């Protein structure tokens, strides 16, 4: 525990394989707890409202939260390195404003989407470079990025700009049929593809493992000769890129651009990541956990919609409560295994 002193112990106690296995399992515990919570909430919902238990209600959780899933993916990378990105909500709004404005002026949708991705990724890259080379707290740099992006939204327009362009409206209305009457939106497929790619990157590439190593001990990672600087910069660029993708997906969903859109969405993304079992201190967590975290947030909203009498602001209160419970659970768990 606290003492690593040099006095000769009589026996060296190596942990038994069983204990090792338990420790290995313990890594997944917070994420599994979130999954259990989600299933439990779904079951309670089904008990209270018979129509709750339908495949489409489940799929709607994805359809209504595609952008949040993509944001949570980017945020997971950042938080795994022990950082934070507060700019994502504002970058979503900026991406929507830019697309809506340019589409209104008759730009080609492919060019617009490409430009939006460049802006989002570029802003993230810039923030990453500042964080790394001037050694400034990510909190401050991304806060500045948030004000910048939000401010640019107001510069573009104070009013809501509708999107009437053909490609965007057709994607917004498209439904991809699954078995029976079930369907998903194209955005869901894109979001899931991004989740799959993120999973692959985090668990099967050196870049991904370096992300975990930095979160575990940045100094050690540096001393091990890992590309710490490059990885940390890229993580913010990736988060910026994810925000831009989320902005495009949100445009498909809402078919408008509005400078006040996605207010506080960065906090929803952080909440989803934390509820999904990723430690804010970095180094521990799973991108699939973050997806479950988003689904938990989604199901809380669904509950309140089904109830019908509660104000939608109750969503925030429940999410706040859940967040607190999860952080307390993680702390208790860490104490028990320490």
């Amino acid at each position, binding site marked *: 525990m606290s*003492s*690593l002193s040099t006095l000769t*112990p009589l026996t060296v106690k190596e*942990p038994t394989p069983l204990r090792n296995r338990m420790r290995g399992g313990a890594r997944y515990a917070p994420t599994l707890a979130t999954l259990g919570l989600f299933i439990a909430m779904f079951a309670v919902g089904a008990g209270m409202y018979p129509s709750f238990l339908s495949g489409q209600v489940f799929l709607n959780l994805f359809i209504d939260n595609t952008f949040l899933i993509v944001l949570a993916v980017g945020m997971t990378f950042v938080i795994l390195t022990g950082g934070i990105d507060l700019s994502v909500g504002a970058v979503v709004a900026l991406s929507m404003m830019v697309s809506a404005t340019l589409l209104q002026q008759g730009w080609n949708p492919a060019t617009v989407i490409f430009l939006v991705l460049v802006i989002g990724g570029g802003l993230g890259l810039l923030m990453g470079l500042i964080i790394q080379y001037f050694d400034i707290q990510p909190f401050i740099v991304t806060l500045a990025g948030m004000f910048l992006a939000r401010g640019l939204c107001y510069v573009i327009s104070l009013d809501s700009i509708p999107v009437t362009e053909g490609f965007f409206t057709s994607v917004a209305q498209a439904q991809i049929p699954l078995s029976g009457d079930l369907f998903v939106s194209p955005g869901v497929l894109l979001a899931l593809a991004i989740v799959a790619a993120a999973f692959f990157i985090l668990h099967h590439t050196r870049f991904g493992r370096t992300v975990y190593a930095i979160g575990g*001990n940045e100094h050690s990672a540096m001393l*091990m000769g890992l590309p710490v600087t490059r990885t940390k910069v890229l993580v913010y660029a990736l988060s910026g890129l994810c925000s831009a993708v989320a902005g495009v997906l949100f445009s498909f969903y809402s078919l408008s651009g509005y400078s006040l859109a996605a207010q506080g969405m960065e906090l929803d993304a952080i909440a989803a990541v934390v509820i999904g079992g990723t430690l804010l201190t970095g180094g521990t967590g799973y991108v699939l956990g973050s997806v479950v975290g988003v689904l938990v947030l989604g199901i809380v909203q669904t509950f309140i919609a089904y109830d019908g009498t509660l104000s939608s602001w109750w969503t925030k209160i429940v999410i706040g409560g859940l967040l607190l419970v999860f952080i307390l659970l993680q702390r208790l768990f860490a104490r028990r295994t320490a």
Partner: protein
Amino acid sequence: MNEIVPVVEMTDIAIGFPGVKALDGVNFRLFQGEVHALMGENGAGKSTLIKALTGVYTIDSGTITVLGEHKQFPTPAASQAAGISTVYQEVNLCPNLTVEENVMLGREPRRRGSIDWKGVRSRTREVLAELHLNHVDPGSLLSSHSIAVQQLIAIARSVEINAKVLILDEPTSSLDADEVNQLFRVIRDLRDRGVAILFVSHFLEQVYEISDRMTVLRNGKLVGEYLTRDLSRMGLISKMIGKEMEALAELDQAPARTRARTDSEVTPFVEARGLGRKGSVSNVDLSIYPGEVVGLAGLLGAGRTEIARLLFGADKADEGSIRVKGVSQRIRSPRTAIDKRIGFCSEDRKEEGLIGDLSVRDNLMLAMQASKGWARRIPRRVQDELVAEYIATLDIRPANPDALIRNLSGGNQQKVLLARWLITSPELLILDEPTRGIDIGAKTQIQKLVNKLATEGMSILFISSELEEVLRLSDRVAVIKDREMVAEIKNDDVSVEDVMTVIAGGTQ
């Protein structure tokens, strides 16, 4: 030997920090297939030299060649690319990842862009087997292993890179005898395979056991390079501390100090009865009389630090009682303890004691200001005098009040920490591992200081892993075992073996 090209040759190296000249004109050579010990007191520049070689610090002047080729190491990655690998005292791996990842991180075999996890595992198994670590499961978390095994895993990482140079910085300071033997077996193995090994340790016996040659540094300057077999231990020490052996001779003398009175007519300064805390320690009965040094002896993790934390209020006791000067007290927090004039020098001086980015003066003034009350300003002139007095009394080096704490060596940081507590004039001072990882000179000074403080009437609880040191200083020794106090021995001619017998004996 002259015709052989050294693997590493460092010439005329200089590195300076604000207020401190860490290295000045140092030369260093390292040959293939040798174990080379880098010796010197704390603050002599050993760590700095290593960090220059590993690319953590950039050198101000001088040259580094590897196998005759000029090299510059702006980053640790550059140094590793040149075949230099380092295992630091505080194992620099990632505790949140598995053993195999820590061994292979950054060099995982890949197939079509994806990490080949099977390849990672089999390669890790091979490397672990080379180091006789077959019992370590490559898939287990690094944090589930002892420090000793973690250190060997760090070495496995260097073996995996095929490092030409392996630097071991204080590798044995947290290991027990068996673990040291295992480590030395591995070191000899690697040496025989032609790896050049740079070994830094404070344990003279270990240095003599393992090293072939040594380079001695003092105050950032080179003293010389010697063959281990040609240099006696006494010769080495006098080269390290640069003066004759008086200091060392004093160290061996029994403390010439009259025993504190511990009879029933004297009230102990602090008296704990049945003190304990769930999940920490239990059944602690301990009295410390004014002017008495009580030592705590026990194995790694036996609960020594935990007892100190209970007495200091850093952890709250949930059973038993504490009386201070005969009055029952509840020590709820360190603040209460400080009010009752109890001081606690923690073993973790970096994390818990000092503020590295402040100067020596500022760190001392923090304590002074706290003890005087924040509202009363201490004039600069008085500050200077007080700080100068403490620097002189404790021989803090460099004797520069404006040097930043983090640029001081471990021994000198420890002295500043001690000074900080002495300023508050405590009546009971708890010293947790005050001499760990510091050199002989500083160690002697701290031991003498403990004696002096006790003579002046201070009660001292002395915690150390070195039993010899505990026995040399203490009037009484409390033996801690398995988180309970199992015995209290009056220190009349007690030997280390006696205490070990108590620790080893009894029920398991």
